[in-house]
């Protein structure tokens, strides 16, 4: 169980970092999504892995799972979902406007030279 979760986080993070380092918007956004999946699982695991236990503290329950990371993950999922939507829209706008989807600084300097 630990091995599966740990390697899932590791593989997702590695794939995410590789894609984030690409030069074009679409792979970078995909990489960001992979990274957020990885971090969600990581946050989930930060409360220790417990199977089949209730996330409630009460006197008659001895084995329970930590409820806080689940709340944190929920917040993180909502935020990252919204952020991905925002970046897709801005990226799409930039691509449609300039017919170029590089995320690096090249178009900036080219634009400056055209103006001078």
């Amino acid at each position, binding site marked *: 169980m630990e091995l599966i979760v740990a390697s899932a986080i590791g593989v997702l993070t590695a794939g995410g970092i590789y894609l984030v380092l690409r030069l074009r918007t679409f792979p970078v956004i995909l990489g960001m999504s992979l990274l957020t999946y990885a*971090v969600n699982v990581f946050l989930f*695991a930060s409360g220790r892995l417990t199977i089949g236990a209730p996330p409630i503290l009460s006197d008659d329950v001895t084995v329970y799972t930590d409820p806080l990371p689940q709340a944190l993950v929920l917040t993180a999922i909502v935020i990252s979902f919204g*952020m991905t939507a925002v970046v897709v829209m801005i990226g799409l706008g930039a691509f449609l406007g300039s017919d170029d989807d590089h995320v690096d600084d090249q178009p900036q300097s080219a634009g400056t030279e055209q103006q001078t």
Partner: protein
Amino acid sequence: MSHWIILPIVLPALMAPFIVLAARYHIGIQRVFSVSGVVFLIGLSAALAWEVSDGSVIYYRLSDWAAPFGIVLVGDRLSTMMVLLTSVLALFVLLYAIGSGWDNRGRHFHALFQFQLMGILGAFLTGDLFNLFVFFEVLLIASYGLMIHAGGNDRLKAGVQYVLYNLIGSTLFLFALGSIYAETGTLNMADLAQRVAAIGPEETVGIRVAAVLLLLVFAIKAALVPLHFWLPSSYAEAPAPVAALFAIMTKVGAYAIIRVYTMIFPPDLEVTSNLLETWFMPAALISCGIGAVGVLAARRVDRLVAFAVVGSMGMVMIAIALFSPAGIGAALYYIVHSTLAAAVLFLISDLVRTGRGNVEITAQIPMAGTFLTAGMFFVGAIAMAGLPPLSGFLGKLLVLQASVGDDLVVWIWAVVLGSSLVSVVGFARAGSTVFWKSHGTTDAEPAAEDAVRPSVLSYTAVGGLFALLVALTLFAGHVHAYTTAIATDLFAPEAYTSTVLDTPGKLSTPKEGH
């Protein structure tokens, strides 16, 4: 427990949807509500700052849940000072945005502006690390909207870069929070301070990773080299009033570093000792240098100012990296100064743009309103480059003074003085090319069509910021005494932690049965 401390967050949070829902198509009503909201915020934050100015700590438990279980807002001298700085800056930026008409060039400027204020003020006031993440996200989401306000291809492209960079920062933040929670089981800052101190020397791997990750996240926000690459393009392409407001955003990162690395991971903590000395100071020195070189090399006024921001953040980080009460005191003084100076320069670069249609550092025909704008650029450059008589000079002097006795004092003096010289040259070159040589050009082109004289309100907003800079210079003794007192508080956080942890609330003492 007073309820006042949550109002700086609630007020903009209510004002923004009100502006969107009730005043969507009426720019006049939006302006009235936005400005009056910010004026009220200034009164509120001044009252909060006054309340804690004797060194007391005020706090607010959301739903009355006691500290490690519920979220707390904490106001001490540091956070209330930053809140006051933010709201004062916001007023002048808002006046400029109205005076220059920037707020009417796209939709929802005022609503996003209020959300941005909510995020920034919340980040300063919260006493919980995860809540800090949430407020970071609030201010970032609003800043994405503000950044691409009024549209345009260059701005959208810079916006994509900015959003992606900050998304990666947010992801790193979550990784850091996950590892902190896995190691300590809490995210409340005061509780963390006690639990991290109790970690044994053989179990430090996780918490050290968390400390480094957290430092990386805050360094991204604070644009510390080599994590500064998002800043120049996005600040230069953002609408000028937005860039001026963003001047406080890098300081949110600096604030978070000060808060976390004096309270949770203090310099004398064995677990994370060497981390800051080894990595932080060299990075700060390089930031300072790169900022100065960028100022010298910039081909546009707005990019010049953006690099000046990088340099000034380097200066703040040098002072913070000393991690002494004198160093933090100097850093806080310089934070106030550089926020105002950067904001004023971004606004002036927009005055140049308004006057002649572009901000290239080339000799062009004289623009409308040259004399006033040139004079303002001159004063702003003096403030930013750190020449006497303005507060930049005093700030740098305080940093130099605080560094005496540090191991790296030679390097600090060399970099601070050298980078100041280079940025003086850079500002002088830019100013003389843009304002002075323009009178000597022979190939007189017709003025750009959109070149108009800036409005009186724009000049008033810039003048107001200058008045603040002058006041900061005149009352430097008082301000520095106050920031030194803040720094002394920070290195003795018992008042903070005991107020947060020992005040009873729901769940804190189950036996008494609430």
